[in-house]
Every structure is written in C-alpha cells, then in structure tokens.
C-alpha cells in the first residue's frame, strides 16, 4: 500500500516538473526538476545540514538535528524512515555509509562531551563505537572532525576548521593525515581568514572542497596532486558564494552557489557545463542552496528557508 501511494505521489509530482537548467553553449548540461522530498503528509519543510546518497540502497539520507536526526528517503524522494532522535545516541552531526548492508559511521556529540564515532545499522541502532587507534602524537585521539566520509574502503574524518582530513581504516586504524592548508598556498594569516565552505570525498578518495572567499574549489587526490577551478562573478558558471561540492561516479562536479542560488555543473575536465535552479520560490528554483548529494543521475539540493530538498534529474551531464 505504501509503495502504491509513493508511486502515485511520484507520478503526480513529476507531471509538474520541467526542464529549467541553463546550459553552457556547446557543452550542454541540463537538469529536469522533479520535485521536493516528501512524506505522506506532503513536502518535508526543513533546512538540512547535510545530505548523503547511499548508492547501494538507492536512498537519500538527510541530516537535520532540529527535525529529529536522520530522515531516509527513496531515490524518488519519498520518506521511508527516520532514526537518530534518541537522546542516548547524541546529536548526529555527520554520517557515511560503511557497507552495502546499510551500516553507517556517524559522528555524534552530546552536550559537554567530546565527539564520538559510532557504528549504527540501517535502523539507526547502535552496533558499537569505532575506536581510533594508532593516532600519532600531536593528533587528536578522538574523532575531532566536522564530517565523516567513506571511500576506497577507508574512513575520512574531515575538520574544516583545521583544514585537515585524517584517514583511517574502516575499523579505526590510523593511516595518514592530509593537510589541505598546503594546497592553498596561503600565509598563516590568510589561512585563518579563508575558511573551507564545504568538503566531500569522492569514491576514489579525492578530497573536494570549496573556499568561498577565494571564489574557488579545490581537488586533492590521494597522491597529493592539487587542482583548482572557479572564478568569481555573478553570471552562469562563476562563483559568488560557493557552498557544497560533490562529484558523481562519472566524474562531473556539482557546486552550489548560495548567493546565485544555483547548482553549477562542471565536467571531469573541470570546464563549466551548465547549471540548475536559480533564485526564486517557484518549483524548481532554489533559496540558499548549500548541501548537495548526487547519485544515479539525480541531484539532491538542500535549501534554506525550510524549503526542503529539491530533486533534479541530470540530462546530458557529460555534454555529449
């Protein structure tokens, strides 16, 4: 019964959709707005802090502590579950998918206590703590991170404040630390002034991050190679206030711009291909887009003003 209702709602919503993307001449990337994430009560009106797409399950996981923790949606944007609102777990700040069985690594905090890194099953039930071991002297013993990612069978604990990403095995054995500061080539004072806007890790272990005040995005490969792109401005393809950044399995990169209220699409060659959204309250338009997730040809964009998460289908994302 649930499935039938979800299908009917999905069909209803998709009939309202339209193609609303801007494409760069000759290298088109366009997007079709589908709908916003919804439950059986209608659109879910929240402003999430993070989005995670679970490729193995075809699920979108939405983190919004004020809305009760983690909300789970189908790839079509229909709510199918929630977890993480139990006080005993603490406040879930970040989540990454550990395996195809639906186990998660989650960063949790409780008032007055240090961060903890937990392993939960797909129901959000506590499986155990992930104990970090082998941490070198001078590095925090605990998680000390603002976000957790999983790639290449490893855990990545990212601290956007210190601009460091520590790499661990999935069981918590320390492997290495990536200092993103060195990729920026700035003085200590400049480093303090230029904070990281958003950060993600792609499936190959490349670290992608934006620095809004530099109007640029950076990619640091596992081998330490650094690439950057972005140019300031208010026209399509330019960075005004860069927000979230994520890469899909085909290599295309999606960057939200908070001020211009768009999602910019860049090809694997880092060339601008087109953009989605645009400021406005009409369906398919965006208000203050920041967090973003992508998977299976669909882009999920979290917005401010409790506008929820908009869902777009990417068309011709490689520009062919």
């Amino acid at each position: 019964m649930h499935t039938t209702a979800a299908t009917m709602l999905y069909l209803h919503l998709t009939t309202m959709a339209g193609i609303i993307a801007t494409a760069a001449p000759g290298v088109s990337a366009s997007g079709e707005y589908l709908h916003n994430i919804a439950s059986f009560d209608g659109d879910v009106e929240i402003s999430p802090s993070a989005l995670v797409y679970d490729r193995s399950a075809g699920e979108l996981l939405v983190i919004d502590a004020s809305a009760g923790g983690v909300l789970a949606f189908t790839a079509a944007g229909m709510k199918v579950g929630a977890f993480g609102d139990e006080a005993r777990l603490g406040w879930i700040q970040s989540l990454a998918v550990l395996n195809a069985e639906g186990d998660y690594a989650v960063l949790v905090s409780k008032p007055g206590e240090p961060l903890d890194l937990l392993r939960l099953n797909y129901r959000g039930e506590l499986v155990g703590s992930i104990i970090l071991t082998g941490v070198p002297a001078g590095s925090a013993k605990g998680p000390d991170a603002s976000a957790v990612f999983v790639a290449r069978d490893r855990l990545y604990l990212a601290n956007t404040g210190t601009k460091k990403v520590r790499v661990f095995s999935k069981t918590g054995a320390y492997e290495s630390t990536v200092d993103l500061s060195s990729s920026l080539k700035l003085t200590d004072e400049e480093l303090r002034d230029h904070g990281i806007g958003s950060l993600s890790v792609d499936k190959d272990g490349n670290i992608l991050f934006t620095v809004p005040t530099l109007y640029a995005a950076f990619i640091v490969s596992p081998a330490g190679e650094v690439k950057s792109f972005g140019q300031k401005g208010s026209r399509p393809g330019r960075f005004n206030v860069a927000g979230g950044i994520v890469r899909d399995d085909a290599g295309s990169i999606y960057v939200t711009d908070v001020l211009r209220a768009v999602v910019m699409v860049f090809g694997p060659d880092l060339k601008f291909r087109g953009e989605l959204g645009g400021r406005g309250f009409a369906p398919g338009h965006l208000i203050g887009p920041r967090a973003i997730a992508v998977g299976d040809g669909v882009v999920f964009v979290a917005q401010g003003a409790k506008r929820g998460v908009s869902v777009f289908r990417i068309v011709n994302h490689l520009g062919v």
Partner: protein
Amino acid sequence: MNLVARRLIVMASAALTLGLSGSAWAFHSGGVAECEGCHTMHNSKDGNWMGPKYRMGTAIGSDQIEGVNTWLLQGSDASSTCLNCHQHEGDTGPSSYHVSTPDAEMPAGIPPKQRTPGGDFGWLKKDYTWVNRNSNFASEGERHGHNIVAADYGYMADTELTQAPGGQYPAANLSCISCHDPHPKYRYDVDFNLIERTLPIKAAGSYNGTTNAPTAWGAVGVYRILGGVGYVPKSLGPTGNSVAFNAKPPFAIAPSTYNQSEATNQVRVAYGSGMSEWCGNCHYNIHANVGTPAPGALIHPAGTNALLSTYGEADIYNAYVKSGNLTGSEATAYSSLVPFEEGLTASVANKATLNAHATNAAGLTGNSYLSVSPSANVMCLSCHRAHASGNDAMTRWNQENEFLTVADANGNVAWADASNSSQQGQAQGRTTAELAAAVNDRPVTTFAPYQRNLCNKCHAKD
C-alpha cells in the same frame, strides 16, 4: 531484501506498535564591498534574462520578475543577503566572521556555536520553558536579541515589540543594515577626524592590525561599518527619514580574531566612546542622555557622562572577583562579561591606546586599565550583547534569577542541572552546555557557588 523494503517493514511495524517527531576578512574592507557580492546587477547576461522565468529563453513562471529581489539583492531580503556569508554550516565551533548558527546544528539542548562579542543570532531561535515552585515559566527566543528579519534563514520580526523599545524603528524592517551601513559614507582620516566621502577607504577601521591605520591618502572605516548621522536604509522608504540616525558611529577597536571560545582567553574589544549614544539612535527614550525622560530620570545611566569614577564603581570593578570576594586587583579585573568604555574619543593617540587594549591573547585581557582611564564609563553593551545572547533582554548574564550558579555536594561551584527539580530556577530550561555558552564558555570556576548576577561587578552588593 533491499533496504527500502526493509525500511517499509520497519515503518509498518512502528505503525502497528504505536498506533500511529571572526576573523577580520576583507570583503567589506571598511567600506562598500563588491557590488556583485550583494546585488545581481542588471539581472542579465549576454542579453538574456537571468531570472528563472526566462531560463533557456522559455517563460516558465507567472511572475515576470520571479527570482529578482527588491533592491536587486541576492537574498530574499537584506539580512538574508548578509547571512549568505555570515551563517555557515559545518563549523565545529566559533569560526571567523560567522554570527549565526543554522537551525539544523543547534537542536534542543545544544547551544549556538558562534562566540562573537555581539553574540550568535541563533539564540533568537532557542525557546526555553521550566517549572519553578509549581509555576510555569518561559524564556522565548525572540526575547534574546535583535529580531532581524531574514526569511531565507528563518528569522522573523519581533511579534511583541513592534517598534524599537524607547523609539519608533519598525520591527518589521529590522535587519542587519538597520545598524550596519553596507555603503558607509563615514570614515576616519589620518588624524582620526570623522569625515564623509572626501577620501577613499583603504581598510577596515575596526581592528588593531598595522594595515588598519589611516594615511594622508587613505581613510579607514568606522567601527563595524555602523551607520552615522543621517543614516537610514533606503528600503524604509520616505517614512524612514523619521528614524534616521542623529549620532555618529562609536569609536572602538577589536582584535582581528574576535570569534572564539572564552574558556581560556577572553576577547577584549577596546571600547572608546559613543556606543550608548549610538544605541540611542533607535532607543532614545530609554537612554538617559538623550530624549525623554530627561537626564536624571529613574533610568540606569549609560554613555559619556556615566563615569565609573563618580561613585567609586571603578574601584569596585577592580576589586570584584566573584560573589563574596572583593580581593581582586586592576591587573586581573577585566571581564568581557562586563565591558565598559574607556572614555576615549577618536584620535591618533587614543587609537594607539585602544590598539594595545584590544586583544584575545592569554594574560593580556585581565588588566582593566581603569586607573589610567578616569573617563571610563558604563555603556549599553556593559550589560547587553549587540546581536543576541542566551538570556532575556539580550543581557550578557541571566538577570531572571538571583543566582547564576549553584554548588555541588562538595560546595564547589557548578552550573545548574535542569533535570534537578531544586535547580530549575537557576537552569531555566537550559542545559549546562547552554548555560556555559551563554557566558561565552567562561569557566564556571570564574564564578562563586550561588554567584549573584553581574550587576555586582560595579555595585558589589553581594
């Protein structure tokens, strides 16, 4: 069985069971910033409208200017435009120039993250309720600060105070640019004369760095680009002239890193003069030196004439450590929870003095310097934060109970525990993390067990 199917089973089972919950960055640089930082210029590119209605050359909306905001702003309103940069997701703690914490990162029991001297606007969204002596109490979020209107970020106009207390500024129009002039015309020349647009602004004037000194060819901006005489946002329209400012911007200097936990080092903004008079631009009737009632009415004095030396408050300030402890000295007396103005007007010499006093470094924030500041005076910000705080009336400490702290079983000072029925009057619905955050993380040992409120820093009646 795939995950979705499993979740549906979980949901169905549940339904059956339950029967169906700062840093000184240089964007503004003391003056008007890049136009495109806030505005969307002509809303066009290569002859095509950028507004969503005309995306791909196809009309898709019913509103021809859908996507274009008033005043060509890039946000839905002025404050939303500001918060596009000044609110940030994912901060692990106080960070750079951020002054607001997203809703999703401060659930019940978790305080806002930012610790700027002005306070985190997120406190406006923290509602508290508690029971004390069988009576119900509440501390509504909108009582915790200036209720800026920022639709994109969930900040709404004050529902109770529809005009500025003691004035007429309309609450429905209160925004960041009600106080901060994004296109400031006032600036300081090399002699620290306050001038208008007769020199370019070379740098921010809010900080004590070496690059923040004016020269013969370049002025520096006023403190926090606050509006000056005649300022009123154009968005108020012609009627706005009735609330135009008549006081000049205050003179003050902040350390270049000012947004940090004060668990170890305090942050001292060196206030010179003019802050209370400036607050009086909007709150003139609750300011003793301006408007009515006249000076001498039963209003706590604040401003240039409210000297800490008049009745010995400066000596008390230096001696006061905590409730029941008056053994302090000038060298360790300063408290960022009760700042004051040094009575110094804008000049080259006074800028140098304030440069030296504005600091966030260990061991340097303790000296009050009151013995060398005979003109030091109490100001509005001695008791209130400028943006918001964890307390009613945006005060720096909680005025709603006689005690700020309690004692544990051993007689050691402790924050009140909201789950302890005998301490709800002190906790007032806040968690210990929120109580600590409300004083910018100053250690609880800063205070005495059963510490009385901090009016006593100047009055020592405890």
